[in-house]
């Protein structure tokens, strides 16, 4: 790489002071927009729906955390198998990732809910089993679809991360007499997660942004509640504006939380 200083135009915009004149003007415009929203828009429905909105928010977060945690636990073996596993298993994992990543999540969701749901109903054994009350709800299908999709995308990330850990570190671990499992637990996995963390942030944000899709199979999340509001109050802009604001806050908080985690993980020599 060149050691010459970068031309001025190539320096990325830095975070500058909020007291710069144009920022003040922009903020005034923004404040004006907020005043307009408060003045011309109707928010009287908000208290009536407050409780349901909070419930929807809780459902969205529950869905996000449950699917991303279980999905990540699935993604680790998926990635590892592709790097070191026996060939048939590696090909299987590879195919799974390609299959899931190559089709839209909405389609997978509908395939599971409408397709698999209707197939399940044809088997009397399933209908009489203790699982049937759960299988008739939409939640398990939404959870499964989101989890599988997260696992596939993360699996690809983890594959790259596992492959990217320098071979010397693994050899050093072996030279220390670590067994395969200890080496994986102590060296390979932490280093891979460390390398993957920035990408994991992005994937988790994407996961948050795909949770509203489950509303199309009647899972009640914050998006579904807002859709209800739109149907019942005949308002177009207000509920959608609120929804966008909610998701903006959620993504912001998620990114901030990951930053904290990233800072906490020691990065000696990384």
């Amino acid at each position, binding site marked *: 790489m060149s050691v010459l200083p970068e031309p001025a135009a190539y320096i990325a915009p830095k975070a500058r002071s909020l007291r710069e004149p144009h920022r003040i003007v922009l903020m005034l415009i923004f404040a004006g927009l907020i005043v307009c929203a408060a003045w011309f828009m109707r928010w009287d429905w908000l208290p009536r729906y407050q409780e349901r909105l909070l419930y929807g928010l809780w459902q969205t977060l529950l869905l996000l955390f449950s699917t991303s945690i279980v999905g990540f636990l699935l993604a680790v073996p998926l990635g590892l198998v592709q790097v070191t596993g026996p060939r048939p298993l590696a090909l299987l994992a590879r195919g799974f990732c390609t299959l899931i990543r190559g089709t839209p999540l909405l389609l997978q969701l509908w*395939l599971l809910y409408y397709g698999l749901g209707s197939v399940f109903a044809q088997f009397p054994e399933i209908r009489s089993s203790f699982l049937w009350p759960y299988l008739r709800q939409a939640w398990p299908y939404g959870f499964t679809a989101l989890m599988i999709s997260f696992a596939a995308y993360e699996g690809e990330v983890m594959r790259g991360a596992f492959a990217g850990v320098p071979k010397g570190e693994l050899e050093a671990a072996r030279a220390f007499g670590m067994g395969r499992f200890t080496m994986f637990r102590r060296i390979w996995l932490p280093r891979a997660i460390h390398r993957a963390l920035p990408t994991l942030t992005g994937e988790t944000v994407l996961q948050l942004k795909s949770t509203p899709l489950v509303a199309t199979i009647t899972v009640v999340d914050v998006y579904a509640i807002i859709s209800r509001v739109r149907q019942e109050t005949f308002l177009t802009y207000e509920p959608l504006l609120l929804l966008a604001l909610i998701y903006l806050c959620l*993504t912001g908080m998620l990114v901030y939380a990951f930053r904290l985690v990233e800072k906490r993980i020691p990065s000696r020599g990384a």
Partner: protein
Amino acid sequence: MDATLQLLSLQSPGWGGVLLAGLAASLQVAFGGYLLGLIIGTAGAAGKLWGGPVLRDVLEVYTTVVRGVPELVLILILYYAGTDAVNQVMALLGLPAVDISGLAAGIFVIGVVQGAYSTEVLRGAILSIPPGQIEAARAYGMSPLLALRRVTLPAMLPFALPGLSNLWLIATKDTALLAVVGFAELTLVTRQAAGTTKAYMTFFLAAGALYLAVTLISNLVIRALEKRALRGMVRPEAAL
């Protein structure tokens, strides 16, 4: 089994033709949206890199908002509010309300979403060009526009291609979200066909195969493009 496969035949009792028409609609929106996104993205990246402070801040707001809000919500907002806003403007101008076609609205929606992502991709790619190459162009006396066309854009291509190809694959799959606003693309058509015939698995699997085919073919094309963009260059990963 044979009966369900007959449902997929192209002629009238089967729904195969309908699915293919849906696929065509999806691909149209994906192509249009992707191209619009590239145009917005190029302009946005240029604005972020070389624009004044005001332009930069406005673009920052655009990319942050679009990247922070789910595509589904954006599609709803742009689809309903966008068409509503157009009609209100037309009413203000004293013109009759226009009927915005689903295709145009879909392309617009996907384009705005893609534009934010490609702004970031292109900005990052332009920033990763070794500064010496730009300086060389300047030393040759190229005007900024000529340098952009001859040096900056071709030189950033290897850095941008992985991100751009990713965006294309996202665009093809984002079209499925238009099903929610009632645009007759592959996913919605599939659901209608499945609902009518009750052969849910058959149709959803068929649609999945179609989407997968689009992805796999795209992958082949992307690989060829990457090979061509990287001709005579060290691979960017290797250069790091």
